[in-house]
C-alpha cells in the first residue's frame, strides 16, 4: 500500500545518491515539484531517465544532481535548446554528463519491457541511422519467421516519479488527459512516487483515465500546482510564457544560478 506522506519525506525515503531515477510525464503532468525537492535535498550522481528531459532535467542537471542522462529528445519544444543540458554535454558544466540516447519509440518500448519484466523490447526503426553505433541497440532475428528487428534493453529504474491529478486517502491514483509513459515508468521501477494535485475522499471514475492502485505505488504526496510550468489537465494550463522565458534564464550560468537559488533552494518545502 502506498504511504500517503509529505513530498519532503517521500523524496528522503525513496531517492538516494547514485540512483537511477525516471521523472516522467510527456509535456503534460511533469513532476516539477518533486524534481525541485530532489535539488533541495542535494541528491548527487543520479542517472536521470526521461524521454523528453524538458525544463525539469535542465534545472536538475544545471544544479549538479546528475552523472548520466538517458533520453530521446532534449529540446525545449517550439522554443529551442535546453541550455543547461547542452552546457553539461558540450562543456562539462557543472559536471561531465554521460549520455545514452534513443528514439521515442525505443524509450517507450524500453519502459514497456521493464514493466513486463522482460530483458528487452523489439521494434522496427534505428536501422541505418548513426544512433546504432552510439547507443544500445542490437539486431535480432525472429525465431519464427527469420525477420530481423532491433532489440533495445529494458528500462528498470530504481525509482519512478510521476504527477497525477488525484489520489484518494488510501493512495489510489487517477490521471487523465495525455497519458504519456507514466504507467509504464511506474510499473518498470522498483519504487514509485506519485505527487498529486489533490487528495480526495473518493476517485470519480473517468473514461480513458489511468488508475494506479495503491498497492502498485510506494508513496503518494500532495503537491498542488506540482506540475507547473507544465500542466495538469482539468486544473491549469501549460505556462508557455515561462517555457519561452526559460530560454533567457537558462542561457547564462549566473542567471540560471540566481534563478535556481530563488526558486528551488529557497522555495517553501511542501
Amino acid at each position, binding site marked *: 500500500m502506498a504511504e500517503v506522506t509529505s513530498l519532503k519525506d517521500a523524496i528522503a525515503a525513496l531517492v538516494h545518491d547514485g540512483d537511477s531515477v525516471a521523472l516522467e510525464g*510527456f*509535456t*503534460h503532468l511533469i513532476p516539477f515539484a518533486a524534481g525541485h525537492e530532489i535539488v533541495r535535498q542535494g541528491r548527487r550522481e543520479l542517472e536521470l531517465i526521461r*524521454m*523528453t528531459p524538458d525544463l525539469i532535467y535542465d534545472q536538475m542537471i544545471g544544479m549538479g544532481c546528475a552523472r548520466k542522462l538517458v*533520453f*530521446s*529528445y*532534449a*529540446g525545449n*519544444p*517550439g*522554443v529551442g*535548446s*535546453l541550455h543547461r*543540458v*547542452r552546457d553539461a*554535454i*558540450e562543456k562539462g558544466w557543472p559536471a561531465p554528463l554521460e549520455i545514452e*540516447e*534513443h*528514439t*521515442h*519509440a525505443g524509450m*517507450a*518500448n524500453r*519502459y*514497456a519491457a521493464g514493466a513486463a519484466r522482460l530483458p528487452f523490447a523489439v*521494434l*522496427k*526503426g*534505428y*536501422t*541505418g*541511422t*548513426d*544512433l546504432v553505433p*552510439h547507443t544500445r541497440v542490437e539486431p535480432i532475428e525472429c525465431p519464427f519467421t527469420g525477420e530481423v528487428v532491433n532489440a533495445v534493453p529494458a528500462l528498470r529504474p530504481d525509482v519512478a516519479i510521476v504527477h497525477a491529478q488525484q489520489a484518494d486517502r488510501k493512495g489510489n491514483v487517477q490521471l487523465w*488527459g*495525455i*497519458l*504519456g*509513459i507514466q*504507467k*509504464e515508468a511506474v510499473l518498470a521501477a522498483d519504487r514509485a512516487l506519485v505527487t498529486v494535485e489533490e487528495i480526495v475522499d473518493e476517485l470519480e471514475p473517468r473514461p*480513458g483515465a489511468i488508475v494506479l492502485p495503491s498497492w502498485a505505488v510506494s508513496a503518494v504526496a500532495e503537491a498542488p500546482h506540482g506540475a507547473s510550468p507544465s*500542466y495538469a*489537465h482539468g486544473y491549469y*494550463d*501549460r505556462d*508557455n510564457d515561462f*517555457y*519561452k522565458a526559460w530560454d533567457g534564464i537558462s542561457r547564462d550560468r549566473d542567471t540560471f544560478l540566481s534563478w535556481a537559488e530563488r526558486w528551488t533552494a529557497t522555495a517553501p518545502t511542501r
Partner: protein
Amino acid sequence: MDGYSADEMMTVAAARELRDGEVCFVGIGLPSTAANLARGRHAPGVVLIYESGTIGSKPTRLPLSIGDGDLAETADAVVPVPEIFNYWLQGGRIDVGFLGAAQIDRQGNLNSTVIGSYDEPKVRLPGAGGAPEIAALTKRVITIIRQSERTFVDELDFKTSLGADDQVVITDLGVLRRVEGELVMTALHPGVTAEQAREATGWDLEVAAGVETTEAPTEDELAALRELKSA
C-alpha cells in the same frame, strides 16, 4: 519578394503538399504550422497525429509543444506513447510524416542530433525524438527546412533519420523531390533562380530540366496563415 516573406512561401508550399483525408504524423514547429494551415483550408479531413498520443487533433491555435492541452481536448482519441508508436506508426496506419531537421543531405537523410562530432559536439541538438521511426514507417515524408550551405550539406554530421523513397522537401527557395534516391529541385519559388538554389546547396544540386515556378501564396492563404500564427 512583395507582400510575403520567404518563410511564408515555404509554409504555404508545404501545406499544399498535404492532401485531404490523409493521416499525418506531425512534428512541432514549422510542420505543425503547415499541417494546420492545410487543415483549415483545402484539407479539412486531414487527421493530425502528435507524438504525445493525440489522434485527430484539431487545435484552435498553434500548439507550442507536441503535448499542449488543446491537442488532447480536440482529439478523436488520446492514447499512451507506446501505443502511438507501436500500433499506429509501426502498424503502418499513417500516410504522411511531416518533419523538420537541422541538416539534410542529397539522399534526403536528416540530422537533428549534433553539429560537429558526436563525442565533442560543436552544437548539441535535441536529438531523435520520434523522427527516425516517422521517416522510416510512414508511406510519404514531407520535410520542411530552410535551404543554405549550412543546412544542405554534402555530408551530415549525424544521420538521425533516413531519407524516404517518397519524399518531398520544401524550402524557402523551392521544392525538391527524391528521384531514384536523390533530391532533385523540381520547383523554384517566385523570384528565385536555379543559381541561387545551387549556391545554397553543399552538393552539386540537380535542377530538373522543366523546373516549375511555385504559385505565389494567394491572399487567402496568407490571411489564413497570419491568422493562425496570431491566434
